[in-house]
């Protein structure tokens, strides 16, 4: 992983190499046979397709098979799922997954327009809708249906910033208060600036290998015990219930079944919280809380480090940062380090970890269960 930041001095080649070479050096001579790249906006912001070749060549793997996986903000998690399947199918015995995103070279309005491409171009974005606005529609409905208090929802970003203070890779390493969240500028009512993940550059890398090869490459390999994917309607209005995140529920159901676990077995998880409302739907979709109850659990002080599950000890998208297409790879790397016991921020430990990444408004989701 690289620290998430405004890396004006690094292009995609150098950022990818920084993360990938660290991952290679963490093994005893890994030799990935293919490269899977998670990225969202290389095409819209950098006029760059064929990203697999750019990354493979930059990290010394010219000649190996390479491709980019795009699922908007969920690209990273989907790249891990694809990398997993390349190994599980037996096609390759080891592959490299690299999540990378550069966002800081352009003004916010340009980046925001790029991010809006996650939504329905013909029926949502045409009206000028931003990604924040679409999430705001969901948040208002959530508050109205469940009577959720605005100040209770603000406890999420407060907890994320507290966790990120300890994470050297995090972008926003400072504390905020509920008052600061409620006083921050309105982006799309009721979403305020401190409900939203920041814009940042970052790259993270993983080496996935068959169990046999993994034991040769590492003294402490972490097992991918479950993988699940799910989707919802691209547009919001046609969904059966805006507050029922079916893509998360479907992905979680598959991943739990494959790993042979229940939500209550998860010790530590990194979940998708691009906005505070996203965190609530993620918690509920994963089955950590009943529908409509997650904000109450926040009031009761749940999900802090040491709780079961501990959620986002990294600081989450909110404060660790959200280099969109790289985020899902950060999450899996962080959970792997949590289970190994060498995460450089808040350590939660545990046997079973989970990473949940989604693109759009819970439109394309992956859930990955890891086991020590």
């Amino acid at each position, binding site marked *: 992983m690289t620290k998430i930041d405004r890396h004006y001095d690094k292009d995609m080649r150098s950022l990818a190499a920084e993360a990938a070479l660290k991952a290679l050096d963490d093994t005893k001579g890994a030799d990935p046979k293919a490269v899977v790249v998670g990225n969202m906006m290389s095409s819209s912001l950098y006029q760059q397709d064929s990203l697999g070749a750019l990354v493979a060549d930059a990290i010394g793997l010219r000649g190996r098979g390479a491709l980019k996986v795009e699922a908007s903000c969920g690209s990273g998690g989907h790249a891990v799922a694809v990398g997993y399947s390349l190994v599980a199918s037996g096609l390759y015995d080891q592959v490299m997954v690299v999540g990378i995103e550069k966002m800081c070279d352009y003004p*916010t*309005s*340009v980046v*925001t*327009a790029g991010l*809006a491409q996650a939504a*329905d171009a*013909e*029926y*949502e974005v*045409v*009206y*000028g*809708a*931003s990604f*924040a*606005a679409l999430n*705001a*529609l*969901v948040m*208002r*409905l959530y508050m*109205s249906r469940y009577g959720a208090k605005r100040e209770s929802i603000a406890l999420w970003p407060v907890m994320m910033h507290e966790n990120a203070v300890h994470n050297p890779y995090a972008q926003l390493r400072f504390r905020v208060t509920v008052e600061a969240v409620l006083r921050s*500028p*309105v*982006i*799309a*009512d*009721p*979403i305020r600036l401190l409900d939203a993940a920041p814009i940042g550059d970052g790259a993270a890398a993983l080496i996935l290998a068959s169990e046999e090869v993994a034991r040769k490459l590492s003294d402490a390999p972490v097992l991918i015990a479950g993988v699940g994917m799910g989707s919802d*309607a691209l*547009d*919001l*209005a*046609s969904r*059966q219930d*805006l507050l029922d995140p079916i893509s998360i529920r479907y992905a979680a159901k598959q991943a739990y079944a494959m790993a042979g676990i229940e939500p209550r077995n998860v010790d530590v998880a990194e979940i998708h919280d691009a906005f505070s409302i996203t965190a609530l739907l993620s918690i509920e979709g994963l089955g950590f809380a009943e529908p409509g109850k997650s904000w109450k659990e926040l009031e009761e002080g749940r999900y802090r480090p040491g709780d079961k599950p501990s959620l986002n000890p990294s600081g989450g998208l909110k404060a660790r940062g959200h280099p969109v297409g790289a985020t899902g790879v950060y999450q899996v790397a962080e959970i792997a380090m949590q289970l190994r016991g060498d995460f450089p921020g808040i350590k939660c430990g545990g046997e079973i970890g989970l990473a949940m990444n989604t693109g759009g408004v819970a439109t394309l989701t992956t859930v990955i269960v890891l086991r020590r």
Partner: protein
Amino acid sequence: MSMRMSPARVWRARGSRYRLEASRCKDCGRTVYPPRPVCPYCRSRNVEIVELPRKGRVVTWTVQYTVPHGYRSKAPLILAIVELENGTRVFSELVDVEPEEIREGMEVEAVLRKVYEDGDEGVIVYATKFRPIKTG
């Protein structure tokens, strides 16, 4: 600025954007907007194009203060999901209304409005927006 909106793309969407055409499933009877070739609820391919009612109620809304290039003159944008009289939901913009006047359940009606101009010489995109129904 180069052309961002193709005339063919705008022309193709005329039925759904101007007349609120949706797809109705002849098997399960449900209607969905925008129209789809396959019913998302029962996977039937037996779907027909129908026009939606032009009146409905606001389900949820937002006032968007940061708007993209090309929409600055309209800021802040009021965007909403409207449930039409037959229960079908559509995403759209609310017009002829101040943010503080909007309420959940507020009655609105469809109007054809301009949404986007592609520079000085490009296509002008029109679509259906919603305004409050004046009572009394």
